[in-house]
């Protein structure tokens, strides 16, 4: 009935869209790093957009299917294989009982998402299935997936493969996701302390390339670039920070807060990456460069609006194709 981890990955956790409503208690939202990938993986198997998925980093887990299931991978391409044979990403795949999913190389991106039709069963803590590693709650017993862990779909629906001989079958359509990811340039709106940057620092911010350092994880990415100077060095009173906030550290380097960020912070907030670009950042690895440009709040809203409409269209198309397909089988 389940999928069993036969070899643990470096950090594989159950996540959903995150845990909101508790940041006043210092409980951060968490959730998937790449929301676009979660939505795509879920849409490909006909789930609600926010159904729990498994977020995997590289090297990722190896898993044994103990039941025939309809699954999909979206986000990063870690060259997935089923019983050693290449299987595509961004496509629904029907996998037969007894097959083993493994990953070869990290071809593109930083996080891949595995969705199963019906969504994964997981612990719900404060209205979310996301794994909160610090307090050890939610997801799979509040921790990363380990060897012998079993995950079950919330409801198992029987699937048949067309060919009685095949181990897996990729269904004949693929979600075109590349348009949702920015390669080199990410956009921000000005933060509350933007004007503490010197005019020269502002110019450097928008003309330089920043590289993601190795000290980057689900909490935040430390960036390496030319140091940015401020006109004042007074310590700030702590205030709330959020996903995408660009904080300036005392040494002039930037940090971008990600899914597991602390809820408050005291460093100057020079900007906030726009919501529409956070999925792109979530798929960047240490060593990758990008540049930053500034947009107005209204532009940021317009960009997200267009992205949401395109995503919705793609989700609808995936759902429609799958419904047609399942009727036909």
């Amino acid at each position, binding site marked *: 009935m389940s999928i069993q981890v036969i070899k643990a990955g470096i950090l594989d956790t159950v996540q959903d869209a995150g845990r909101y409503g508790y940041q006043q*208690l*210092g*409980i951060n*939202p968490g959730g998937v790093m790449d929301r676009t990938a979660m939505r795509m993986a879920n849409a490909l198997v006909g789930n609600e957009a926010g159904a729990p998925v498994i977020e995997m980093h590289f090297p990722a887990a190896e898993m044994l299917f103990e039941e025939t299931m309809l699954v999909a991978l979206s986000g990063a391409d870690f060259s997935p294989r089923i019983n050693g044979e290449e299987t595509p990403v961004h496509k629904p795949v029907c996998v037969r009982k007894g097959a083993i999913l493994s990953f070869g190389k990290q071809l593109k991106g930083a996080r891949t998402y595995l969705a199963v039709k019906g969504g994964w069963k997981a612990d719900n803590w404060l209205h979310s299935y996301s794994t909160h590693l610090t307090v050890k709650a939610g997801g799979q017993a509040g921790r990363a997936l380990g060897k012998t862990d079993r995950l079950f779909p919330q409801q198992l629906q029987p699937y048949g493969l067309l060919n009685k001989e095949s181990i897996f079958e990729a269904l004949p359509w693929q979600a075109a996701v590349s348009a949702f990811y920015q390669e080199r340039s990410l956009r921000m709106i000005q933060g509350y302390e933007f004007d503490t940057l010197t005019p020269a620092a502002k110019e450097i911010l928008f003309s330089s390339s920043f590289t993601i350092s190795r000290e980057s994880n689900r909490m935040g990415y430390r960036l390496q670039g030319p140091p940015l100077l401020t006109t004042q060095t007074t310590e700030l*009173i*702590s205030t709330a920070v959020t996903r995408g906030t660009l904080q300036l550290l005392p040494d002039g380097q930037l940090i971008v807060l990600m899914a597991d960020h*602390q*809820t408050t912070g005291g460093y100057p907030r020079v900007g906030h990456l726009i919501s529409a670009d956070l999925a792109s950042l979530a798929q960047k690895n240490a060593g990758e460069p990008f540049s930053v440009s500034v947009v107005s709040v209204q532009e940021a809203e317009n960009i997200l609006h267009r992205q949401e409409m395109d995503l919705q269209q793609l989700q609808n198309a995936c759902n429609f194709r799958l419904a047609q397909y399942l009727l036909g089988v």
Partner: protein
Amino acid sequence: MALYQYLRGRKIAGVLDLIPAYSSLSVVYDLAALIKKNPAQSVYAMMESQLQEAVRFVEIQTVTVSNKVTIPVCYDLSLAPDLSELAALHQLTIEEVIQLHTAPTYRVYMIGFLPGFAYMGSVAERIRTARKSSPRTKVPAGSVGIAGEQTGIYPLDSPGGWQLIGQTPLPLFDATRTDPCLLQPGDEVKFCSISLTEYHQLKKT
């Protein structure tokens, strides 16, 4: 704080989180959902006008304290690694430090850093002490600390740089409770000094 309490009661559509801090209130809203509902409008402008309206309704005097909480703290030196040094620094006896720390009623201004970590103030001037120059790699859960004019309690084992002057046997955070955090923003807190024996007894229950 008054605005925070007012907005929590009002439940504005699309608002995901309200995060009060010392001198700010941050509002986190679901931009994607609000854009879908109001495609022709600026969501930011809409949210701004709703918040300005709320500010007009709220008077600073209307802060209602959500809870009064008394927290037992054991100041025994075995649980208070920085207490002697802190007393010496301020030329006070340990009893005087305890007296100065337990005398005020503190307010929870903000919760941050860790789930349930309450930033409380204000600490008596005579015992205000800067953070340690190099943070400890592990502070045990329940440790009571001072950082400048703030006092707080570590809800979980964690690295930390506050000056540790005691420990409480009460769990500040418990994921299995419906309300996982003992303290809420706006709460009034008093500390009372307990003996090591009482500490161990309370810790068991």
